[in-house]
């Protein structure tokens, strides 16, 4: 084991002092989210306006509201199209809206733009909706910069999007004038938000011939009587991005410095590094990766890959964190002859690896593919959905198995320590370092889970008469900055507490017996005595 780490040599008073300071820092993280940052993301709702296009799209015109270029169809129910393929009906959404007589603009600070489509299907005895119907949208997405003319839209994507329309209706409501409840469909996801204006022109073409032949396989034959299309565009709020980025920018150098310091301490040791120390260093390094404020780049350049990259960074952090817990628990099994050997953990670590890989596969299939086609969805094809389901279930199963195993291991470690303590074979300091980390980890995990549920609860109470007064809805950001800060503090504290103590490393070498001697030495006694006396009653 790592002998003479800072945690073992620190006086209780100093430790409590440090913990108090970190507690304050944690409160500060929370406060920053609560008082400076707005909610993380907002949505804008667009009810698509219907325009008539006599050219049926052949001319390649763009249809938009501002400036007006739309032969408005007030209601589809009263519109008589001239042909059966319905290409002359164009659904348009011009994003973002104008508000207070001002054309709003999307900004790179919004980081991403997520588009959903909600189809309003009215019950009809004639045009029946069949569950599982395929909806195919012909989507053209246009973008415009601030400099270009108001009607100079540049084509960004021109794709056919196929989704499965899942709607339900209460049997008692099956009469004209009532609407199905339909699931919202994913439409697009842009990994960066570098254009101020977007325009969607959507058509729902119907191939009557094919529908007659094979209504199940042909899209748009069984979609029922569509009344409206709604698009919901979700973006990250600029204020949240700013607060988040500054947090990262401030934290990143601190974590880098801590890693450097930890590494230096290790290299000064006259013995090779222990596995646990390597694990902590690795954790520090991935935290540096996670904290690196790469998003600043997105403000100056078009980098749609940043969304995927931030997923990957988070995934990597969790992978290393989970691996670390496993190693940490294992390294406290003193009797284990295979100590300090990474390959001893290969079976358990493979659980983490498989879970991470499965999620990586899913993320690459979804967000990775969206780099090439923003309208791509892995769920839209049967094959893709199977892959997605498999990877998610595999990841879930592995994570579950991992936690069961981790829990088992902790129980084993706990019992073995108790046994040894009873036989006076175990040092108090060993116990202390384990207990400390265990409690701290438990606290952090509990807080993360609590924050997660508070957030869900806050969002659930969005609705209700006094929605505006709810504290929880406004503190969503606080939970984000709070948990983010907490895991940073967690890793920093690990680095600081489990680094070899400077009081130790000069004369130390790898033998435990000698350290036992040093423990009772005068130089150490001054620090460790008040600590042991303090902790004694707690351990008994």
């Amino acid at each position: 084991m790592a002998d003479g780490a800072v945690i073992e040599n620190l006086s209780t008073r100093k430790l409590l002092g440090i913990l108090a300071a970190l507690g304050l820092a944690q409160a500060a993280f929370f406060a920053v989210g609560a008082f400076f940052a707005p909610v993380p993301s907002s949505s804008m709702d667009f009810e698509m306006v219907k325009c008539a296009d006599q050219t049926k799209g052949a001319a390649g015109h763009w249809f938009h509201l501002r400036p007006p270029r739309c032969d408005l169809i007030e209601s589809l129910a009263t519109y008589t199209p001239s042909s059966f393929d319905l290409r002359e009906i164009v659904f348009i959404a011009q994003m973002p809206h104008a508000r207070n007589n001002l054309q709003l603009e999307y900004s790179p600070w919004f980081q991403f733009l997520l588009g959903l489509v909600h189809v309003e299907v009215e019950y009809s005895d004639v045009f029946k909706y069949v569950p599982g119907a395929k909806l195919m949208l012909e989507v053209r997405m246009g973008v415009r910069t601030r400099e270009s003319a108001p009607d100079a839209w540049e084509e960004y994507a021109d794709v056919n999007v196929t989704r499965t329309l899942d709607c339900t209706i209460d049997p008692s409501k099956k009469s004209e004038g009532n609407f199905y409840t339909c699931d919202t469909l994913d439409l697009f996801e842009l990994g960066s938000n570098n254009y101020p204006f977007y325009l969607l022109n959507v058509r729902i073409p119907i191939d009557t011939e094919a529908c007659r032949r094979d209504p199940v396989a042909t899209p748009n034959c069984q979609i029922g009587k569509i009344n409206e299309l709604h698009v919901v565009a979700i973006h990250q709020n600029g204020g949240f991005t700013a607060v988040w980025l500054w947090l990262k920018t401030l934290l990143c150098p601190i974590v880098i410095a801590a890693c450097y310091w930890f590494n230096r301490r290790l290299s000064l040791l006259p013995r090779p590094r222990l596995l646990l120390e390597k694990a902590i260093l690795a954790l520090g390094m991935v935290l540096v990766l996670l904290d690196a404020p790469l998003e600043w780049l997105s403000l100056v350049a078009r980098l749609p890959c940043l969304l995927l990259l931030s997923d990957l960074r988070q995934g990597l952090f969790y992978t290393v964190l989970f691996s670390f817990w496993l190693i940490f628990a294992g390294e406290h099994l003193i009797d284990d002859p295979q100590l300090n050997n990474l390959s001893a953990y290969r079976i358990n670590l493979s659980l983490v690896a498989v879970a991470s890989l499965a999620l990586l596969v899913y993320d690459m299939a979804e967000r990775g593919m969206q780099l090439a086609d923003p309208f791509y969805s892995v769920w839209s094809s049967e094959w893709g959905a199977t892959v997605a389901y498999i990877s998610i279930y595999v990841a879930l199963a592995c994570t579950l198995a991992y936690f069961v195993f981790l829990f088992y291991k902790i129980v084993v470690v706990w019992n073995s320590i108790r046994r040894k303590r009873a036989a006076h074979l175990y040092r108090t300091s060993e116990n202390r370092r384990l207990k400390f980390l265990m409690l701290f980890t438990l606290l952090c995990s509990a807080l993360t889970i609590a924050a997660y549920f508070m957030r869900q609860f806050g969002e659930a109470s969005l609705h209700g008469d006094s929605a505006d007064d709810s504290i929880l809805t406004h503190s969503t950001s606080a939970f984000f900055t709070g948990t983010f800060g907490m895991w940073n503090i967690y890793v920093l504290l690990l680095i600081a507490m489990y680094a070899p103590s400077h009081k130790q490393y000069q004369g130390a070498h790898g033998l435990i017996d000698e350290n036992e001697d040093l423990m009772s030495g005068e130089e150490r006694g001054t620090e460790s005595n008040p600590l042991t006396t303090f902790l004694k009653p707690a351990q008994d």
Partner: protein
Amino acid sequence: LLLPLSSLYLPLQDLSLNIDPSSIRMVLVIFLPLFLLPLANSLLDVSWWSSVAQLNVGSMLSSGSTGMTRLCPQLEGLSPGQGRICELFHEHMPAVGAGAFNAIQECQHQFRNGRWNCSTPIAHLGPIHKQTTKEAAFTYAILSAGVAHEIGRRCKQGRLPSCGCSEEGRPTSIKEDWAWTGCGDNVDYGYRFSKDFIDVREKEYDSKRSNDDGKSLVNRRNNEAGRKLLKKHSSPKCKCHGVSGACNLKTCWLQLPTMRRMGDVLSKKYHNAHRVIINSRGNMQFMNGETMNGKRSRRAMLTDLVYLEDSPDYCRQDRSMGTTGTIGRECKKDSNGSDGCDVLCCGRGYNEETSLTKSKCRCKFEWCCQVVCDTCLNSTTIHTCK
């Protein structure tokens, strides 16, 4: 007797409403002055609704905002405050009109079987508004909900450039606000506009006529109940979009209920409406003694409809009361409900008439998009009240 006839319909179209829009326009252009004329003088309370409701058509005619500014003086019966709002937000007026129109249609749908069927001899609405009956309470509530609904809807369509973003009163900083915190909800905007535009009328009446017997108070409360219910029945929809689509990031938005749903909700409230009296201090008080100030009852009651007066007898035609009577109404002979001839005809009996009607029958739906029907001649027996 069968007349085979195949017809073609398209999936996006409503079978029953398959009329050329231009013909609707023509009909409405002709009838528009007819609607307004008799109302303007005698029935001040209602005329503004009726005239505003025609704006739906007006907007179709001009199809845009051209000439909208001149529209406000033409609207009959607007109160001074409403006139000012109309001038300021003239592009909102077609939405107000369409909202009122939808509300009236929904009202007529909800009460199609009742003795009161949401109609009057003159136009859609009658002097029902001058009284504060249960029926008036329903009408007030559904109209203000309808207006809020339509405003919110047009905001979503991007057809109202002045929809509010976040809080009112900070228009200069709107770009920064939006970039920093995103935009407010359309439902909220519709709610606020409906409140401002409709309630301003009742407030003005308060100051002018101090002894309107608390009608303004009651009307305002019913207006508010309609809007509150609209907000309350907006369903939140959420999307998870965290790492790998996990729910660590989630965004929710409100979805407006359909007007049919609002009609259903409000008609339930109509059946449970509370009779109130105005006490000497000018406050509302429940008939059965429970006060408005009781904390619990107040919270429970905010979305309930209230009324002051008993409903008039809807069996008889009485123009002064604004009732049309049920003479000539179609009824169902064997029904025990409110549409049964016994109830609807108020015991006066009914006429039986057999007529031949053409209707589409034996419709076959061919995938996709095509409906092939036969036309049948049916003999139907119609019962109408004496």
